[in-house]
């Protein structure tokens, strides 16, 4: 198992392939295995792919605090320094996308491009009203046989409240797919760290700041996702963001890795050609 020290923390990581660097950032409660047998093989044919376990996750150290997107963006920058990666494409799934975006906001010169898959951002919480999400009733129905009761009032409810409930549900991806959740790591994260509180912090990644991130960005969202309004907002406000909406689930990068790998490789190729600006921003006029 390979470890690298950054920001005073030991991170478990793997690298595959040769070429331009791309770093894949997993979501909260996940780990690098999320990417490994799924999108890494396709990407590693053309790029050097780095995957790592966030602090508190997988086989990385588990410090008691420092789990805001800003803290984790510093970890990512530190990891790049320690591995000698000057610049990289950053790909984040879910909360991992918030980390990648925060890193690009602080260190744009280190980021070749961004891919945000199913990402919600603490600053944009008000822009994804759960009450207006068509999937709400279906989610409540799906959860109830497992004893997970969602609030009667979606307005006062936050999707992050699902995190501690995950052990009650069958595993969605990976080795234990369809089996009861293994909740050792989740319990450790919940009881010995501030992660689940920290991840809601806006910090300096405010709406205004998000709108200034001018790296070529591909936002990929599921058409039934509660996060879709975020993708829409990012396309409308970030200078170089394009939104791709596709059918799938929140976990599509692992469930249907081709659905991520294909647009990813096209996006990287376009960035290299310098032709990524979304058409409705290019002319400076909105339809």
């Amino acid at each position: 198992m390979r470890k690298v020290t950054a920001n005073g923390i030991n991170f478990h990581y793997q690298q595959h392939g040769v070429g331009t660097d791309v770093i894949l950032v997993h979501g909260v409660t996940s780990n690098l295995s999320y990417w490994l047998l799924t999108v890494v093989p396709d990407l590693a044919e053309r790029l050097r792919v780095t995957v790592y376990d966030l602090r508190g996750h997988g086989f990385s150290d588990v410090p008691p605090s420092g789990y805001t997107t800003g803290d984790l963006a510093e970890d990512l920058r530190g990891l790049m320094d320690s591995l000698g990666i000057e610049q990289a494409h950053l790909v984040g799934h879910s909360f991992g996308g918030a980390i990648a975006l925060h890193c690009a906001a602080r260190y744009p010169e280190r980021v070749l491009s961004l891919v945000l898959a199913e990402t919600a951002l603490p600053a944009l919480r008000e822009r994804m009203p759960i009450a207006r999400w068509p999937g709400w009733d279906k989610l409540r129905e799906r959860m109830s046989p497992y004893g997970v009761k969602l609030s009667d009032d979606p307005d006062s409810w936050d999707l992050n409240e699902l995190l501690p409930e995950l052990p009650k549900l069958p595993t969605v991806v990976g080795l234990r797919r369809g089996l009861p959740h293994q909740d050792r790591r989740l319990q450790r994260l919940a009881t010995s760290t501030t992660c689940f509180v920290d991840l809601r912090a806006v910090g300096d990644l405010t709406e205004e700041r998000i709108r200034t991130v001018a790296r070529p960005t591909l936002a990929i969202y599921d058409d039934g996702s509660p996060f879709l309004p975020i993708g829409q907002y990012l396309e409308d406000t970030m200078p170089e963001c394009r939104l791709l909406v596709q059918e799938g689930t929140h976990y599509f990068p692992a469930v249907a890795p081709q659905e991520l790998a294909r647009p990813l490789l096209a996006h990287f190729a376009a960035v290299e050609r310098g032709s990524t600006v979304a058409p409705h921003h290019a002319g400076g006029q909105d339809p």
Partner: protein
Amino acid sequence: VITYEAVLADVIRMLETIMSDWDIEGEIRETSLVLGDIGLESIEAVALATEIAERYGRELPFAEFLSARLEQPEQEEAGYLQGKDFTVGELVDFVTRELNGQVRGMAG
């Protein structure tokens, strides 16, 4: 040629190290169910594959082993898959065969 017993001892030691952060019920042994008894997660399977590759000097096709073991026609009950698992012994058998197959192939 490496024996099944030698690989078994190695794999059990690796699993004990990988799982050392957690309390596992009972000892890890040949008959332990990898998912049910040891409760292995994907990230721990990744760690085990890495340790095995380092110990024996090459990567083994674990994805093939896992899909053969785990992608049988699925029986679902109350949202959970039934009967999806394998023992430490079955895994060790696969590793031993792979390692020795390679040795035989090289010899002639």
